[in-house]
């Protein structure tokens, strides 16, 4: 089964980079969003639901943890991988249910390793890269 990923980041250049990296790896990008409020709505409208969400923390309107909380309420099996420049968000994100946390800037290998780790998990688990 092909992994489907939803991207949430307010930096359009970053979203483009994620899409390019994932496309090259043959990973399907189910959708993307540039702000917190739109992200929750867009995710809810997707069918089937994405397996993994790549989530930035500092977003307009709602932050990444708030969006993740809404997503996990809707679909508890979704794994959320935080990719953020805000290192202080690591602990609260993991505590709130994030499956992983990568600090920007990152190496592509780090991102892919985290995604592969999550693909292997049936349910959300804590991991930090």
């Amino acid at each position, binding site marked *: 089964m092909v992994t489907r990923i939803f991207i949430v980041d307010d930096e359009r250049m970053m979203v483009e980079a994620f899409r390019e990296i994932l496309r090259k790896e043959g990973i399907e990008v189910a959708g993307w969003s540039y702000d917190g409020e739109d992200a929750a709505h867009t995710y809810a409208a997707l069918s089937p639901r994405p397996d993994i969400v790549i989530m930035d923390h500092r977003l307009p309107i709602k932050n990444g943890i708030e969006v993740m909380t809404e997503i996990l309420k809707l679909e508890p099996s979704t794994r959320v991988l935080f990719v953020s420049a805000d290192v202080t968000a690591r602990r609260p994100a993991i505590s709130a249910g994030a499956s992983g946390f990568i600090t920007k800037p990152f190496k592509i290998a780090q991102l892919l*390793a985290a995604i592969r780790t999550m693909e292997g998990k049936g349910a959300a688990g804590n991991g930090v890269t």
Partner: protein
Amino acid sequence: MLAILTVVCFLGFLAVLTVGRAGDAPVMSDDAFTSAHTTLQLLSISAAMSIFGIRWTSGRLSKSRPDLLVGAAFLTVGLFHLFHVLTYPGLLEESQYATYEISTHFRLIARFVLVGALLALAFLPWRRKAELSDSIFIVLGVAVFVIVVFYVVLVRADSLPELYAEGGGLTTYGLAVSYSCVGLFAIGALRYAYLAGVGKDAMHFYTAAALMTAAIGELSFSVHGSTSDFAHLMAHILEFTSFLILFLALLRESVATPFKTLAVSRSVHQSDLVKLEQKTAEAEKAKLRAQAHLDFLAHDVSNIISPIMSYTEMLLAGDPLTPQQRKYLDIILRQAQMGGIFVTNLRRLATAEAVQPDAFVGIDLVKALRSMEDVLRSTHKTKTISIIQSFPVDTQAVAPGGEHIEDVLFQIIRDAVDEVTDNSVRISITVRKVRDEGGRHMWQVSMTLIGHKFSPEALAEAKIIYDPRRRMGRGIASSYAFYSSIVSHFGGRLRIENVADGDKVASRRVTIELPVVETFTEMSGGD
């Protein structure tokens, strides 16, 4: 109160002019007057000596030459008034020196000494501080002056002009001397009234009142016809009143001044305290603003660098590149990565330094290190990670720093695992309690990456301490510079070294020592 007293004295003088002068009639018998005169003079002497005591002592303590001079003047005045009493007819009947002439000479000289000292005090600059020698010279001066006057008035009385005309009051010479004295008192009163108006100094006002009272008293003296008439009696009452005004004013000032000084000092202190609090609040706001700016800067720079790194990596992994293209892309990637690490670490340090070192936020080192093992294994599945732990048994290893120290520990271990290219990673982590050079209990965390040592260059770079006052140069890429600063912020220290284990395997070790905290509150996660 003193102002009212002055008014009363003035009214007394008017009474002298209108009633006393009318017939020069004695108001009491000579014996009764002598008793009243002696009593008033003894009271005046007491006041003069008290003023001398207070002024002289405060002059010595505060090294004030004016105070010493005035003190000495009142000592002289007190002595001459004593001679005036002792030579006053009727007290010592058998003495050949008990004459109105001699007695009045002593009194008038005392008046001139008093007004002379007060005028000198009012008109001279008095800038220099008093030395010990000043006190000695003044005392010697007083002694010499008193002896000379004593000798001239008693022994060489015949050489002095007569003050009294038999049965007719003061002679022309006596009146001239008395009016001179009145004039000097009046000048002194005006001068002190002026000073009181300029400086709003109560002591000047009281001195003006005393001098005016003395002037009125001297006027009363000048108009007396017989020694027991009302004018003569009023002259002595007003004379005593002027001493009393000066004494009460001085007493009031010597009691009130320390309290005033204290109040002013307290007011200044409170004012400074308020200013200090305002400055502290401003500094705190400025610090928070700077941290917020740094936070946004670091965040945005990271977001800018991330796509650069990703696209560069994709280019490197893409179509065949020329060696030169590959070299340039490698440089771009490495520099972007260094910039990213620097900004992240700078932000990490700023966030940690925002926490007060003595804030009650701790970390259980053992618990934190144990939880890292699972995380490392899940994120580095391609590697076999073996962690040899040696932790204290049945006790928490609590140190300050909370999540900031946890972050540093995790980054150090993760960096070590990332840098090992082999599939097998062996790490030894030891936590134990030690004492530092100052005898403080410290938790020592030693993290050894077995079989891998720092290159000399990496070791030298890792030992660079972050210092915002100077350029970091090559050291900016070293995270240890920042880790060390964070550990130091929480009262600890970080050491980096290459070591040889018992089996002679070269290894790299990072040791962190942090103060032991007995109890703690774990930092709650924030957004």
